């Protein structure tokens, strides 16, 4: 049987989605369901003086109104890891007191028999506030910037090697510019939504989340209930882009209200509310200074980022991290500072750090290339990093030079004229731009369970989720190959916290993390099956050795005599077994320092861990020496733009992305992911931005009419290419994650192409017509 991994198979859930049969969090039909509507603060900072609910309480259908006066007390969550339950605003558990830290903060939940009744009553709740002076406006508060201790997951935020300052002073050629990016909102199609149902002391939650296990962990901690009493479902997710990676108040408010009013409660944030109460990407101001010799060899890179966070948690947009490893350079100084503002808390957004970071760095590189009069592509090659210089490690696999080559050819890089404004098509100025893409290749510990059934089909259970990226599909391929079954015979089940713990969908890590244990569990099941046959005198394989036997298309047989064998179903049926199970846990992390952390004793993961000691696939995988390698994906983005110089409008004419992400597991879903990232990049370069009122600090542009994302008419011809060279160290599958790299570099490539067309260097995103006619 030919392997399924690598085949461009259709999404296994495609039909369910296009027919509307896939059930998203807010769509579960729950009996006796009540509807919650959130009321949010209309001040930016202060205290709630009074909430008058009298009129609203009397409205038809109203079941109750939950405020900080009557809501249940939550326990403070300990975790800061989204996979184990990271509450996005650790100092602002919802409805616990009267303090207001930002506009749009939840202040009350109206619960009624219908959504319409809840909406109507919510409009009648009168909230009085004591306002306090708030920190409004990034620039106005920049003097209060401080250096954070670390970023997400303990990421370093201040990185140094050599002496960048000194090297800059003596550099023959220098650039020193400031690049700014605005606030972005994820704007997943699916709004943040939760349904909570109590059955005695057991809680069931349907949630729009990138981490069913994280939500389970968080509910357990905050509500103070035992882990086995909580079950979280997220069968289908309509996009997260980071906004559903941390857990937001809606996930807690629904179970709180359901408990308080003794009814299952659904709570869906409105699009407007998502702009305040469900995360965002922060504004950044990035100062980048580059120094090089006359030949273009970099001698110094300084990258200082200031971003903002809230008063109720700390999130660092680590824009400078990629700068520490992207190019070969002896003197590097990367720093990050934060300003606190009275806004909702930021969180990971579409390649957090790398997306704005590669925009600034890669535009700076383009500026340096112009100063040096060196082709920008050539400048990247001159400074090609053969090793990860900060960590002094080899890359596990890096084929970036091939990416550059193929991208340059596909876009027609030789057509580019270095002198801006010299290439024309009709009324348009033509420009070409390029940039490097990069994103860390993450992998974390994950567990899966495999089951072979007597009817010949197989099943995988894994407590991860498919956030729309194609996880169901590619994991079906992984499992099919390991089970030696056609994909139609394999069912992959995800999005249920009662399954063995899988990775959260964040940091582009799901495929790399859950692929190996899914593979290992399936191989484990086949191994058990082979051993059943070997020890069974009724089997034609009786008495042979395991290593002499192989599996193919639902059947095991002797390697050297395929005729001698029998089907999985024959073995199981003869043994009277309905099914055969195997579990596997791979304790591999590309980020974690030190030895793997064992699963808590008695947990389902501990059982899988125990079983994995005898699982050859796990043992070989874990044996791989990874400590000497740095894991990163790379790519090259090439862009051709047409600019109308009089009207300042930009038409992206063609984009090419060539990605080096290890094994391509499914060309369709992989192309989909990269293309989506590139379209995000068009949005970031040309239109996306969130505006806050300069006087009261509240979000002004808070719907999809005011917050522009690209529409079809903005999308040009897109070419996505892959190097498709397996990464021998990331896992036996060889696939690195692919979720976020598509958005990196692309914004810079567009900005660079616009400069090449017009000679206008816009260092403040987005590049809108007003900036190009200025």
């Amino acid at each position, binding site marked *: 049987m030919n392997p399924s991994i690598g085949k461009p198979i259709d999404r296994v859930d495609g039909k369910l989605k296009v027919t509307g049969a896939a059930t998203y969090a807010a769509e579960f039909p729950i009996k006796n369901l009540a509807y919650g509507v959130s009321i949010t603060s209309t001040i930016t900072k202060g205290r709630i003086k009074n909430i008058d609910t009298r009129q609203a309480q009397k409205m038809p259908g109203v079941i109750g109104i939950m405020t900080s006066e009557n809501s249940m007390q939550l326990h403070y969550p300990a975790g800061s890891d989204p996979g184990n339950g990271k509450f996005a605003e650790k100092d602002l558990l919802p409805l616990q007191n009267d303090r207001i830290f930002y506009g749009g903060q939840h202040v009350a939940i109206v619960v009624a028999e219908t959504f319409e009744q809840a909406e109507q009553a919510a409009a009648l709740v009168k909230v009085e506030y004591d306002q306090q002076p708030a920190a409004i406006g990034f620039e106005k508060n920049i003097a209060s910037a401080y250096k954070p201790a670390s970023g997400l997951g303990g990421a370093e935020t201040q990185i140094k090697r050599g002496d960048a300052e000194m090297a800059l002073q003596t550099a023959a050629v220098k650039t020193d510019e400031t690049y700014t990016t605005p606030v972005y909102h994820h704007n997943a199609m699916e709004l943040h939504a939760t349904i909570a149902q109590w059955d005695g002391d057991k809680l069931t939650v349907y949630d729009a989340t990138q981490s069913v296990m994280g939500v389970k962990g968080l509910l357990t901690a905050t509500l103070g209930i035992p882990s086995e009493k909580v079950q979280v479902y997220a069968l289908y997710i309509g996009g997260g882009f980071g906004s559903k990676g941390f857990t937001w108040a809606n996930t807690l408010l629904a179970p709180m209200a359901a408990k308080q009013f003794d009814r299952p409660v659904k709570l869906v944030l409105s699009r407007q509310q998502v702009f305040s109460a469900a995360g965002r990407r922060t504004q950044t101001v990035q100062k980048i200074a580059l120094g090089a010799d006359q030949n273009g060899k970099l001698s110094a890179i300084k990258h200082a980022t200031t971003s903002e966070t809230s008063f109720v948690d700390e999130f660092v947009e680590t824009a400078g991290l990629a700068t520490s490893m992207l190019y070969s350079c002896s003197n590097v100084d990367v720093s990050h500072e934060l300003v606190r503002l009275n806004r909702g808390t930021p969180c990971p957004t579409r390649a957090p750090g790398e997306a704005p970071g590669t925009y600034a760095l890669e535009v700076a590189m383009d500026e340096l290339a112009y100063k040096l009069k060196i082709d920008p592509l050539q400048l990247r090659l001159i400074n090609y990093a053969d090793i990860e210089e900060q960590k002094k490690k080899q890359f596990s696999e890096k084929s970036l030079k091939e990416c550059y080559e193929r991208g340059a050819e596909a876009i027609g890089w030789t057509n580019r004229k270095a002198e801006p404004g010299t290439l024309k098509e009709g009324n348009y100025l033509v420009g070409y731009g390029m940039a490097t893409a990069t994103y860390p290749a993450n992998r974390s510990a994950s567990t899966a369970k495999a089951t072979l059934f007597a009817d010949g089909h197989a099943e995988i259970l894994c407590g991860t989720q498919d956030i729309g990226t194609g996880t169901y599909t590619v994991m079906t391929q992984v499992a099919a190959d390991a089970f030696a079954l056609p994909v139609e015979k394999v069912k992959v089940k995800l999005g249920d916290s009662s399954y063995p713990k899988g990775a959260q969908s964040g940091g582009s890590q799901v495929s790399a993390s859950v692929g190996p244990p899914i593979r290992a569990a399936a191989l484990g099941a086949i191994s058990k099956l082979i051993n059943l046959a070997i020890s069974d005198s009724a089997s034609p394989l009786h008495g042979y050795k395991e290593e002499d036997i192989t599996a193919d298309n639902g059947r095991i047989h002797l390697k050297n005599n395929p005729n001698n064998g029998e089907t999985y179903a024959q073995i199981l049926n003869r043994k009277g077994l309905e099914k055969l199970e195997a579990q596997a846990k791979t304790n591999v992390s590309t980020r974690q320092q030190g030895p793997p952390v064992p699963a808590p004793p008695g947990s389902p993961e501990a059982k899988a861990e125990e079983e994995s000691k005898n699982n050859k696939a796990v043992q070989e995988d874990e044996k791989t020496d990874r400590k000497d390698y740095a894991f990163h994906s790379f790519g090259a983005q090439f862009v051709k733009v047409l600019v109308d110089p009089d009207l300042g409008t930009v038409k992206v004419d063609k984009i090419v992305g060539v990605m080096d992400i290890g094994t391509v597991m499914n060309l369709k879903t992989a192309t989909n992911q990269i293309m989506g990232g590139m379209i995000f990049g068009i949005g970031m370069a040309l239109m996306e931005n969130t505006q806050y*009122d*300069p006087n009261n600090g509240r979000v002004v542009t808070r719907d999809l009419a005011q917050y522009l994302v690209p529409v079809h008419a903005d999308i040009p011809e897109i070419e996505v290419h892959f190097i498709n060279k397996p990464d021998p160290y990331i896992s036996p599958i060889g696939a690195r994650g692919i979720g976020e790299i598509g958005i990196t570099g692309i914004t810079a490539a567009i900005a660079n192409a616009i400069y090449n067309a017009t000679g206008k260097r816009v260092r403040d995103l987005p590049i809108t017509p007003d900036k190009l*006619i200025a």
Partner: protein
Amino acid sequence: MEPFKFIRVQDDQSAIRAALTIGTKFIAGGTNMLDLMKLNIEAPKQVVDINKLSLYQIEELPNGGIRIGALVKNSDLAYHPVIIKKYPVLSEALLSGASPQLRNMASVGGNLMQRTRCPYFYNTDFACNKRVPGSGCAAIDGYNRNNAILGTSDKCIATHPSDMCVAMAALGAIIKVQGPKGLRTIPFNEFHLLPGQTPHLEHSLRQDELITHVEIPPIPYATRSHYLKVRDRTSYEFALASAAVILDIQNGRIQHAHVALGGVGTKPWRAVLAEKVLTGAVANEQTYRTAAEATLSQAKGFKDNTFKIELAKRTLVRALTITGGMS
């Protein structure tokens, strides 16, 4: 959303009778009104569905003009062969607005009545004189990149959002309305009101009146016309600046000129000063630029939208150049 009474009427007279009830709103396509109701910006006590009325005709008139029923869908008007042939500016303006789905729902009458997309008008937590008279204007000192530069007042700087209306302003359309006392005709430039001290009053239609038709006068030279729209994304976005242009050029000289601007005015902006410059002048870039300067000399920029003054000039020059060419 507030609860409301919903009725469906079969003829004009029933519609007008129903509108005598205070707090009544007609609904046709509902593409703007439903949003406003859901966001608690409008809370009609009674909503009268007029989609059953027979106002779907597009008729050529004996004088060469055209009469458009108020319920004609934006798409149907845009793709009507007579409109495409005789008034390309109108077809182009319609097709540059919204999305195909919205144009398939939106009616001509509703397009005339659509309200500003000023973000402060859309957010009930902010002051807005248009929404709540006397409450103030958060946009004037706020984020106002998309707000107006022409026809503003110290009470309101909200932009009129329509593309269709810009073409109709240039064409000098006439709005036919029916009320309890019979028919009335409103010239296009008198239909929408400047904000002045009363930005909540947006048009000269009375509570008990129903728009039945829009008439476009015969303009034989309107075959030479164009609508140009500049915006932050290629489709499905309101104008930063737009221009509707109709030019009658003979022997290189402009005999008649109709010009209107969108995205920059508090109402669809007939550019009378530009028309004055253009009429009788040689059709060349100098003339176009002078015309644009003349009209935009009245403009006043705010914190974030001063760029619109230059952008509107360039948009108009480009539209005139495309329409009139260079002689």
